[in-house]
């Protein structure tokens, strides 16, 4: 691999950096904005240092919160703010990184644009190089913006710098990971799915280790726990940052080496041959869509099932921890029975994941249309409704299957850990109660595909991000509950009672969104 391989990287960079700044601004500014809102809300929340102290103690004692975020390290505002924003910022930044890398490497290769570029005076590694420079550059700027924001709001310099660099390096880890995965798979879709799955695994490792106060091996293994080694605003151990840089460097070197070895357009793993004849069931658009969706539906079901089993098996542990803390009783009673607080909250969070699957499943019809694969189908006996229905059914029914799997997983986990108590039906009903919110989320996607196809992907995910944002800001106390109720998830949040009327009304809204989407799809032109 010579420097000539990177020839032309300057012109590539100029080209790619011309567009996409709206998305990049969100990437760059999100952590800083989160820090700002968290600072404002938390500094207004406590009138005395005792209140602050009590809040920190409570959160340490609350295993639910502790599992998701880990423990607060210092009893001051910077400590609380950094603890609060670290996970979400890293997830958002990681997603941007992974999607950008896979799009700029595998995505460009698949479309054949890389072939065109590489036939000009552009080195073979220039594409990957440009993608990495952009991502790592953005990560650095994002981290520094975070540092700047925190310093401006009066949080200590070395802690803020630590946070900024932690975020930059943590998200660069995922960029490196994505570039490595891109070398192994042969499709952009596979690459980004696998990368997301890895992020999920790293988060889950941190989730199950967050309840442990001491640093163990896991703290070094997963970027989500590097925070606890760094200890910003406390002992500020910058050495973990150095370790992070080394890890990122190693993965990048591996990715670049693989990239120089493989053919353009292919992954390292070669294609297998298939069958000359279609199986008997492959005779209509329903079967074709099933063939397309089955892998993804299976993966999501299995992964969430496994996660649910994990949740179910620690539930008894958590319930015991909660019972021993009377201070949390009032908080827990919001969720119904105190023991159920943990499960109730986790079921809600998993419901958000199912909603994300719902959007992905619905968006499949849109990508089929923009790749112009629907034309041939529509020239046969297939109607628009059947075509759309064959994909959208997975966001309607597939989500139900995953939700049931989650419920069963939790119960199974409880059985395995010997914590089986009488309220299993509650677990299933709580899971199913999230479905209308899930259906509304995918219903919005279907609605957009029917009426505004070209921007349907962007708007669908933006609306979903808005729902999550409303939840976050309500949880932080910045927004009133009425704002959160603008999101369908506000209505199925575990602190609210489960009512049949809510279920019916939300489902009806979802049905209306679906119907309008179908009607729009039927009437409009098929377009890229």
């Amino acid at each position, binding site marked *: 691999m010579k420097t000539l391989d990177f020839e032309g990287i300057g012109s590539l960079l100029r080209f790619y950096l011309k567009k996409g700044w709206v998305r990049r601004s969100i990437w760059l500014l999100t952590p800083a904005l989160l820090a700002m809102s968290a600072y404002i809300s938390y500094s207004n929340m406590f009138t005395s240092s005792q209140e602050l102290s009590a809040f920190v103690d409570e959160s340490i004692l609350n295993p639910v919160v502790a599992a998701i975020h880990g423990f607060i390290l210092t009893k001051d505002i910077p400590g609380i703010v950094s603890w609060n924003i670290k996970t979400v910022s890293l997830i958002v930044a990681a997603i941007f990184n992974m999607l950008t890398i896979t799009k700029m490497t595998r995505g460009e290769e698949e479309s054949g644009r890389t072939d065109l570029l590489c036939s000009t005076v552009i080195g073979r590694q220039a594409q990957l190089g440009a993608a990495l420079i952009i991502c790592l550059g953005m990560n650095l700027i994002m981290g520094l913006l975070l540092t700047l924001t925190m310093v401006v709001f009066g949080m200590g310099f070395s802690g803020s710098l630590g946070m900024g660099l932690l975020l930059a390096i943590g998200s660069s880890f995922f960029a490196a990971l994505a570039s490595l995965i891109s070398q192994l798979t*042969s499709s952009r879709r596979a690459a980004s799915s696998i990368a997301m799955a890895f992020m999920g695994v790293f988060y889950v490792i941190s989730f199950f280790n967050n309840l442990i106060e001491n640093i163990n091996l896991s703290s070094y293994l997963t970027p989500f726990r590097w925070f606890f080694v760094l200890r910003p605003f406390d002992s500020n151990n910058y050495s973990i940052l150095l370790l992070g840089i080394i890890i990122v460097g190693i993965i990048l070197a591996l990715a670049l080496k693989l990239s120089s070895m493989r053919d353009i357009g292919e992954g390292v793993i070669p294609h297998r041959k*298939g069958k000359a004849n279609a199986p008997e069931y*492959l*005779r209509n658009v329903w079967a*074709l869509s099933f*063939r397309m969706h089955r892998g993804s539906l299976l993966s999501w079901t299995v992964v969430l099932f496994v996660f649910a089993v994990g949740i179910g098996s620690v539930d008894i542990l958590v319930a015991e921890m909660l019972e021993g803390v009377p201070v949390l009783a009032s908080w827990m009673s919001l969720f119904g029975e105190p023991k159920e607080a943990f499960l109730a909250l986790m079921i809600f969070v998993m419901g958000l994941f199912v909603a994300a699957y719902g959007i992905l499943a619905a968006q499949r019809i849109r990508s089929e249309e923009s790749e112009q694969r629907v034309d041939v189908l529509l*020239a046969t006996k*297939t109607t628009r409704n059947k075509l759309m229905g064959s994909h959208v059914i997975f966001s309607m029914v597939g989500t139900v299957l995953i939700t049931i799997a989650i419920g069963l997983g939790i119960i199974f986990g409880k059985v395995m850990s010997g914590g089986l108590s009488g309220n299993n039906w509650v677990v299933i009903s709580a899971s199913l109660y999230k479905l209308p919110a899930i259906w509304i989320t995918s219903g919005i996607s279907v609605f957009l595909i029917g009426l505004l196809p070209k921007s349907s992907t962007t708007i669908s995910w933006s609306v979903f991000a808005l729902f999550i944002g409303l939840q976050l800001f309500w949880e932080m106390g910045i927004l009133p509950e009425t704002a959160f109720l603008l999101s369908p998830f506000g209505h199925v949040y575990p602190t609210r009672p489960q009512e049949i009327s809510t279920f019916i009304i939300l489902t009806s809204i979802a049905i209306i969104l679906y119907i309008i989407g179908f009607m729009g799809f039927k009437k409009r032109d098929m377009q890229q």
Partner: protein
Amino acid sequence: MAVIKIEQLSKSYGTVQALKDLNLEVKKNEIYGFIGPNGAGKSTAIRILLGLLQNSGGNAQLFGKDVYQNALRLHSKLAYVPSDVNFWPYLTGGEVIDLLAKMRGKFDSKRKADLIERFQLDPTKKCKTYSKGNRQKVAIISAFVSDVDLLILDEPTSGLDPLMEMEFQSCINQAKRNGKTVLLSSHILSEVEKVCNKIGIIKNGSIVESGTLSDMRHLTQTHFSVETKLSIPENILSDISGVSNVNIEDRHIKFSIESDEINYALQKLTQYGVINLNSNPPTLEELFIRHYSE
């Protein structure tokens, strides 16, 4: 009854007018060649026929029924080959052929085997791994496998090698013999000349010329190359109006002439004892260029 009937069809995308009062008719068992410059509106017209796009004016009918209202019933009678072939990357060619055939109606595995053999396609490869030409073969085979009355083909052979081009033409001729109707949009004018019996030239969204090839040939000149026993004088054809590109070398004359004047010119030439005579009718390419450059 016309199989395809398009009347005053218009289609605009915002301010861009893709089709403007397009009129086109294809009768049963006609092989209609639909040609025109890039961006003239061929694919747009075809996509409207298939119900993929709505029109902004006029109407389009297949088998006497409106294309939009009756799409479902009409589609079981036709097979479509798109111009940009994109298939599902992880299905094999064989699976795609089976799927599309079953979605149209009947499926004949013997016919599939025969066509795969003729076009030399490896049906076990995933669509992602095919070259452009092979992807097109998959599309063409899946169209011919079904026993439908109408074939709508949008630049089907643009990536095929000459041998496969010949196979394609023999399939079209077979369809013709079996009473099928074909709408073929193509840039390969030699192909259109060989298989089509009617032609329509579209330009800027309307048909500028249509008719049989022989109708259209009357509009341009035939080329002659004649050798004689005796020397030919310089001004032999100068009294004929429709003559051009005259080139005389002693006993060899080359010229281009309008069809009306051929007889008179030959009468003049036979006086000099014709030994050898070669004539080339105007090619479709010349017809096309004449329309395109106007």
